[in-house]
């Protein structure tokens, strides 16, 4: 009985501490920010800080992607820490790779942290959960790597610095048609992934247009995230005798598909999208993935702009590794927001939104960004090929 009472007391005490520390009081979060807040009080008022919120999957299934993006954002914050003479403070909220949490995190950033703008999130579905909240509260959001067209569609407050699936699908269709001379293609797609489904669809559209043959897609087969065994799909695709296989999907499954296809003696080229650019793709695929071609946002071999060079150097210095595309995109998202605040001359979210919408020929680390009327970036794509166990830059394709 005694033990139980102690447990109760502990729990209740913890709850009380939690509730007071987390600051139920709204604006007055004196204890909440801890050190940071005290510093602010020492140097002046809250007015001297412009807060930019970041919501990313820091835990859960997509934590790796979220972490890479945050790295880029933090680097940008270090290199460009001020705007309008005020410090920019990043407030990072974890969305636990979960839609419900994503909505909570964004509401929190807006309500409790009073951020001017938000960056996020890795994973289009989390961005979609945040969309209506940002719109209702009139806070601009810039997504770094959310490629699902639905994210920005019909939402004036959502932007992104990456190209969208339709463009990538078009790029790959053009590549297999022009460069590989393919006239018949098979598609093996990860049906539970919105990105793969979108890519496959736009690849099909463009490829049909190019070949003028409504039956140019000779096979269209699906698999689920987490599948291990793909012989059935490969068989179906191979029996239709395509010139090329387009296989958009997650890197693990895609690497396995290519491996199993090669084992079954299927030797036609296999192409994919930006998700393939992960070390795991090479590790799992090994020799089998040699020659695989995919489109992506960014390359660290050939700096696209001056900003890329700065980004590459600083990134290598800080993290001691080669940056991924999403890190560069996170970096760009931050820069776009910062430039917009500067141009707006104030930290008023609506004015900042208007300036973000006007972004044109903005020089970012991952290419030159111009936002179209939907808030999607129109920018060049990069083709990469696996050679000698490395991703090798092939060519840049302008929009």
């Amino acid at each position, binding site marked *: 009985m005694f033990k139980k009472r102690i447990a109760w007391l502990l729990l209740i005490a913890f709850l009380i501490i*939690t509730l007071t520390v987390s600051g139920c009081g*709204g604006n007055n979060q004196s204890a909440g920010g801890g050190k*940071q807040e005290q510093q602010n009080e020492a140097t002046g008022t809250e007015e001297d800080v412009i807060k930019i919120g970041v919501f990313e999957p820091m835990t859960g299934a997509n934590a790796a992607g979220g972490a890479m993006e945050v790295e880029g954002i933090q680097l940008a914050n270090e290199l460009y820490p001020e705007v309008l003479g005020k410090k920019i403070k990043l407030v990072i909220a974890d969305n636990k790779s979960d839609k419900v949490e994503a909505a909570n995190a964004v509401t929190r950033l807006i309500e409790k942290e009073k951020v001017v703008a938000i960056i996020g999130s890795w994973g289009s579905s989390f961005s*979609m959960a945040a969309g209506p909240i940002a719109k209702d509260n009139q806070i601009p959001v810039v997504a770094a790597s959310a490629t699902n067209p639905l994210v920005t569609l019909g939402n004036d407050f959502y932007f992104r610095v990456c190209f969208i699936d339709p463009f990538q699908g078009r790029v790959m269709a053009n590549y297999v048609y022009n460069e590989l001379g393919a006239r018949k293609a098979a598609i093996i797609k990860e*049906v*539970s992934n*919105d990105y793969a489904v979108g890519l496959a669809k736009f690849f099909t559209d463009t490829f049909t247009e190019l070949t003028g043959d409504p039956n140019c897609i000779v096979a269209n087969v699906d698999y689920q995230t987490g599948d291990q065994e793909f012989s059935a799909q490969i068989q179906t695709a191979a029996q239709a005798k395509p010139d090329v296989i387009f296989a958009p999907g997650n890197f693990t499954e895609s690497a396995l598909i290519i491996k199993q296809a090669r084992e079954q003696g299927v030797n036609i080229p296999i192409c994919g999208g930006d998700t393939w650019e992960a070390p795991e793709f090479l590790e799992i695929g090994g020799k089998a993935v040699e020659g695989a071609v995919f489109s992506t946002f960014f390359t660290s071999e050939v700096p696209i702009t001056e900003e890329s060079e700065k980004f590459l150097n600083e990134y290598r210095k800080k993290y001691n590794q080669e940056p991924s595309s999403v890190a560069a995109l996170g970096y760009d998202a931050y820069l776009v927001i910062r430039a917009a605040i500067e141009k707006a001359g104030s930290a008023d979210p609506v004015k900042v939104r208007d300036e973000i919408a006007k972004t044109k020929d903005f020089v970012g680390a991952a290419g030159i960004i111009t936002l179209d009327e939907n808030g999607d970036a129109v920018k060049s794509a990069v083709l990469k090929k696996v050679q000698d166990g490395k991703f090798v830059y092939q060519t840049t394709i302008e929009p």
Partner: protein
Amino acid sequence: MKKKTITSLLIILAVIICLIIAQRTLDSFSLRILNLSGVYIIFAVSMNLINGFTGQLTLGHAGFIAVGAYTYSLLIMDSDLKQMNFFLKPLISPLDTLQLGFFPAMIIAGLLAALTGFLVGAPALRLRGDYLAIATLGFGEIIRIIFTNTQSITNGSLGLKGIPKPDNFFFIKMDNSLMWWIWVAAIITVVFHLLLIDSSYGRAFKAIREDEKAAQAMGVSLFKHKVMAMVISSFFAGIGGALLASLIGTIDPLMFRFTLTYNILLIVVIGGMGSTSGATISAIVVTVLMEALRFLDQGFLGLPELPGLRMVVFAILLLIVVLFYPKGIMGNEELTWSKLRRLFGKPFAAKEVNR
């Protein structure tokens, strides 16, 4: 009996008054957490009916929630919105032009989920124990995978966005009508389950939980009661799913993975298997705690930012609960006035004895 009814009504009244105060004073972040708590109450209480009271470990709740969420979303979106969402493959008719009000959409969502519950439960509930858990888990995943692949109905993995929120509460225009829908649904769910458990059906459910053979010998139809519990449970899960879709405004199949089921099961276990009030309390505690612990992630008391710390602390809290309350907060009993009095009265009484 009459006294009990009056106190129950008083509690409901108190909750409603609290809600009115909350709506006036809280900011939209706190309101969102409040609403989420309401939705989780519906999930947890409904899952508790089949898992806690009837003693059938089923893990297909996420599937029923998905059915409810999708049905509701497809019924409440207008045709323009549907056209925007279904840009890859058009929605099949007549769904593409069909649009209903909030209440009918929600009820149909519940009914379809109940039907799914029947279709899943009828074959699966012949199994027992682990086998039942695995079978229902499988069915839950099957529902999700069907939704992923039927692109012309559910938009597949792209999900749906822009699901509108209700702008009225039973034809009364209000600012936060969604909050009222959620909480009225939550109150109805709790009251319904309390009454159901007290009825002869409820006793049959509990009898099945305690000993299936004995229950059968007493004339309780196992199949009928198990399926009934499942259908009622999935009906409320569907309602909850509809409200969740409306609250978040966007859904996709990945939301309804088995982790959602585990989250709800976690709430049920913490609250106490077989206690409606336990499930209610723990739904609120878990939802609020997950958000309240967020300050841990953002670096507090001079510590650096450490995303994920709140999960660690949350896990420790769970450990404490499991260590000291292996049966959950409430065990399989309900919160009653006399219990509350004992809980707060006893420490002082005990102290006096020690002296």
